[in-house]
C-alpha cells in the first residue's frame, strides 16, 4: 500500500443509502433543527417526476416539514445570477434549509446559495477562493440524480460569472452538505446516454484519485471499491435500466469516487476536461470518459504500478491473475477503452469514444480540430495539473488533445519525462 508522508482526509457528510432512503428526510431535517426547506433542482429532474417522489417522501407521519419553495430553473451551468436570485427566494420564503435534487449544476448552485443565506450579503464574489468561508452554513441535504459527479461529497463549488466569462472556484469544508441521500428511485429513469457518461465520470474520478500526487490509503480504498462497483454494474445498467440494485451500486460507486478524489485531487484528465468544457461546452462526463485512457498513458512512466493495480477492480481477479505483471497497466488502459466501445454500442452511438465523435443535439461536431489549441491554452490556467504526477505544459496538452481527437492511443515515446517520481516507494 502507498504510505504518503502526510495526508488529509475529510468525508464529513452523513450518507444514507437505500431503495427507500428518502423517507428519512423528515427525521434528518428535525435533527438539523430545520422545517422549511428550499428545494433546488432543474427542469429535467422535475419533468422526470423525481421532485414529486421527494416531496411525497417528506410527508411521512409525524413530519413537520413544510416545503418553502421548489426552484427548478437552475441552468446546465451554475451561474452567479441564479445563485443570487435563489438566495433572495430563500430569504423571502423564510426557508431554513436546502434540499438539492439533481446533478452537478444544481449541487453547485445550492452550495452557492447556502453561502449567501448563511453568511449574509448579496454578492457571491466576496466569498470566492479558499479562505473566505469561515463558519458552518445552514443545513443542506443533497440528493444526487446522476451517478455521478460526486458533488454531494466534495468541498468545491464551481460557479460561472457570466458577465466576465470566468469560472469561479469556492473551496471550503463548510460547503459539504450535512447529509447525502442515495435512493435508487432517483436514478431509476436516468437515460442510457447520461448513465454511461456519468458512470465514466465517476470511474475517472476514482482512477485519477488513485494515481495523483495527493493519494492516501483512504482515498485508495474508496477508489478501489468505486472502480469495482462501477465496472461491475455500468454496462448492465445501461442495457437494463430498471435494475435498481445496479442503480444503487452505481450511486454508491459515484459517492465513493467523489470522496476519493475530493481528498486526493485529480490531474491531467480533469485539467483537459475542464478546458474542453469551457471552450466547447461539452458535458463533463463525455470529456472524462474519452480522456481517461490518455491521462493514464501520459502518466504511465510514473504511475505504471498503480495503473496495473487498478486492473484488479476493473476487470476482476481472473483477468488480473492471467495477465503477466508487465502487461497489466496497458491492459487496464485497454479495458477502459473497451468499456467506452461497449457503451458506444449500448447507447446507440451516443457515447463518444474520441473527441471528434462528440456531437450535439443537431449532430454537429462539438470539438472541431481547430479549437484544440484554444483548449490547450485554457488548460494551462486550470489548477488540476498541479496534482498530476508529470508536468503539463501547453505543448504537452496539445499533443494529448490531438491524439484524443483522432482516437489513437498515445505514443509513449513522445511524452516528456520529468525526473523525480514522488509515487515510487
Amino acid at each position, binding site marked *: 500500500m502507498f504510505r504518503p508522508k502526510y495526508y488529509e482526509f475529510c468525508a464529513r457528510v452523513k450518507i444514507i*443509502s*437505500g431503495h427507500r432512503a428518502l423517507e428519512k428526510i423528515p427525521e434528518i431535517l428535525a435533527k438539523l433543527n430545520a422545517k422549511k426547506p428550499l428545494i433546488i433542482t432543474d427542469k429535467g429532474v422535475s419533468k422526470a417526476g423525481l421532485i414529486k417522489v421527494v416531496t411525497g417522501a417528506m410527508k411521512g407521519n409525524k413530519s413537520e416539514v413544510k416545503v418553502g419553495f421548489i426552484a427548478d430553473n437552475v441552468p446546465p451551468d451554475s451561474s452567479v445570477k441564479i445563485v443570487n436570485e435563489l438566495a433572495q427566494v430563500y430569504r423571502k420564503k423564510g426557508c431554513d434549509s436546502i434540499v438539492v435534487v439533481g446533478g452537478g449544476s444544481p449541487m453547485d448552485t445550492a452550495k452557492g446559495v447556502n453561502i449567501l443565506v448563511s453568511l449574509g450579503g448579496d454578492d457571491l464574489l466576496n466569498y470566492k477562493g479558499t479562505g473566505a468561508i*469561515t463558519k458552518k452554513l445552514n443545513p443542506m441535504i443533497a440528493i444526487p440524480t446522476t451517478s455521478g459527479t460526486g458533488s454531494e461529497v466534495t468541498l468545491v463549488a464551481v460557479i460561472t460569472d457570466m458577465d466576465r466569462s470566468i469560472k469561479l472556484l469556492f473551496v471550503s469544508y463548510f460547503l459539504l452538505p450535512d447529509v447525502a441521500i442515495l435512493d435508487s428511485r432517483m436514478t431509476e429513469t436516468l437515460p442510457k446516454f447520461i448513465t454511461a457518461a456519468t458512470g465514466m465520470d465517476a470511474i475517472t474520478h476514482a482512477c485519477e484519485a488513485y494515481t495523483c500526487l495527493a493519494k492516501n490509503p*483512504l482515498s485508495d*480504498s474508496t477508489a478501489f471499491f468505486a472502480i469495482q*462497483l462501477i465496472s461491475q454494474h455500468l454496462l448492465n445498467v445501461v442495457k437494463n435500466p430498471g435494475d435498481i440494485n445496479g442503480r444503487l*451500486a452505481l450511486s*454508491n460507486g459515484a459517492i465513493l469516487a467523489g470522496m476519493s478524489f475530493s481528498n486526493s485531487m485529480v490531474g491531467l484528465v480533469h485539467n483537459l476536461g475542464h478546458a474542453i468544457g469551457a471552450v466547447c461546452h461539452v458535458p463533463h462526463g463525455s470529456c472524462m470518459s474519452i480522456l481517461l485512457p490518455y491521462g493514464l498513458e501520459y502518466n504511465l512512466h510514473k504511475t505504471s504500478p498503480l495503473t496495473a493495480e487498478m486492473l484488479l477492480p476493473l476487470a476482476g481477479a481472473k483477468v488480473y*491473475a492471467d495477465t503477466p505483471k508487465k502487461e497489466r497497466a496497458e491492459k487496464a488502459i485497454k479495458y477502459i477503452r473497451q468499456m467506452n466501445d461497449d457503451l458506444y454500442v449500448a447507447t446507440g452511438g451516443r457515447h463518444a469514444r474520441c473527441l471528434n465523435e462528440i456531437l450535439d443535439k443537431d449532430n454537429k461536431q462539438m470539438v472541431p480540430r481547430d479549437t484544440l489549441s484554444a483548449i490547450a491554452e485554457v488548460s494551462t490556467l486550470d489548477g488540476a495539473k498541479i496534482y498530476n504526477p508529470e508536468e503539463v505544459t501547453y505543448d504537452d496538452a496539445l499533443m494529448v488533445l490531438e491524439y484524443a481527437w483522432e482516437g489513437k492511443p498515445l505514443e509513449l515515446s513522445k511524452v516528456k519525462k520529468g525526473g523525480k517520481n514522488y509515487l515510487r516507494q
Partner: protein
Amino acid sequence: MHIAAYYEFFIQAKIISGNKAMEQLPVELDSYNSRKPFAIMSKKIAKSASGKKFIKALYDSNVIIGAMYDNVPDYASISMIKELAVLFRNRGCDSIIVIGDGAVMDVGRGVNILVSQKDDDLLKYAGKNILKKSLKPLIYIPTSTSTGYESSNLAIIEAREFSSDFLYPDIICIDPRITVKNCSQCVAESAMVALTHSIEIFAVPVINPVTDSYALASIQYIYENLEKAVKRSGNKEARLAIANAEVMAGIAFSNSTAGMAHSLGVAMADSTGLSQGVCMGILLPYCLEFMLYKKNTIRDILLFAIAGHDVYSETPEDERIQKSFNMLHRFHQNFKKLLPQTFEQVNVPEYKMTEAALRAAGSNKKLMIDDCLIVLEHAYHGKPI
C-alpha cells in the same frame, strides 16, 4: 458486490496524518474561530516529552493554550471532569485538544458537554441522543494504542454511556512524534483490537462500501506494519501506520455492529482481567472459522486486504476464505512473544469462560451461549474448528 438495501454512514472527523501534522492545527482551529484551546493529556504519555513536542508544534501561531492538564488516569471521573470544566471557563477557552487514548477522550468529551451546554450536571446528558446541538470543537491526537472508541460517538464515564453524533471529534491529528511513544506490548494489543474490528466488518451481512473502505485501509496498514512497529527500536513510520489503522478501525466499527469476536473478547476481558487485545487476538481466528462452519457469509475481499493484489487474484475463489484464516493464524503467531496464543497459556479457569459466554450472549443478541462455549473451548486448547 451486492450493496445493502439500506445503510447509514457518518464520520465527523477530518483526519490529518503524517509529517508535521500538529503544525497544521492552528489554521484548523482558526477555521472554527478558535484561538484558545484547552489541552488534556493522559498521565501515561505526559511522562514522555510529548507535551513539549505539542507545544513546540504550536510555535509561531496566534494560538494560546488556555491550560494543559496532563494528569488524567486510566478512568474518567465526574468530579475531575467538573473541575476541568471550571478551569476551561476561567481561562476563556474555546476548544478542546485531547492527547492520548482511552479514558482521556472520555474526560475530554465530558468537559465538552459541560462547557458547551453551560451546565454542571453531567449525568443529565447520559443516554442516547440527548444532546441537541453541536459542542465546542474537539481535537484528538492519538498515540499508537488507541482503542478505536476515541473516534466514535460514544463516551463511557463512571459506567454511564453517553451516545450522540455531537460527541465525534472534529479533527483527528495523527502525528509521528506522538505515536512513537508506547510499549510494544500495548501497541500489539491495541492493534489486535483494531484488526478484530476491521476484519469483522467483512463478516457482517449488511454491505456498506464506505465502512468497507475504512476497514480495508486499516487491515492493510496493520498487516504491513505491525511487525516493524513492535520491534524494540520503535519505528516512527510503522507506529504512525498502526495509529492510523486504529483510528480507521474505530471509525469503521462505530458505523457497524459488534461481531462475535468483539463481544466475546470484551466479555472475556471483563471476566478474566486480561486486556481486550489479548482476548480478541486469540479469539478472532476461531470466531471466523466458526462462522464459516455455520455457513455465514464471510466476504473474500478479506484475502485482498490481508495479502494484496497478487495473492488474492491467484487464489481460486473457493479457497480464499480458508487462505485468509491460515494467514491470520500465522500472523498472530508472529507475535508469540508478546501475545498469548491460547487461553490455556494464560491459565484461564473454565468457570470464567462460562461467565464470559453468558455475558457475551447477554450483550449481543445475535450470539447463542452454546456457540460461544464451543469457540472458547477451541480457543482454550488451540484446536482448529
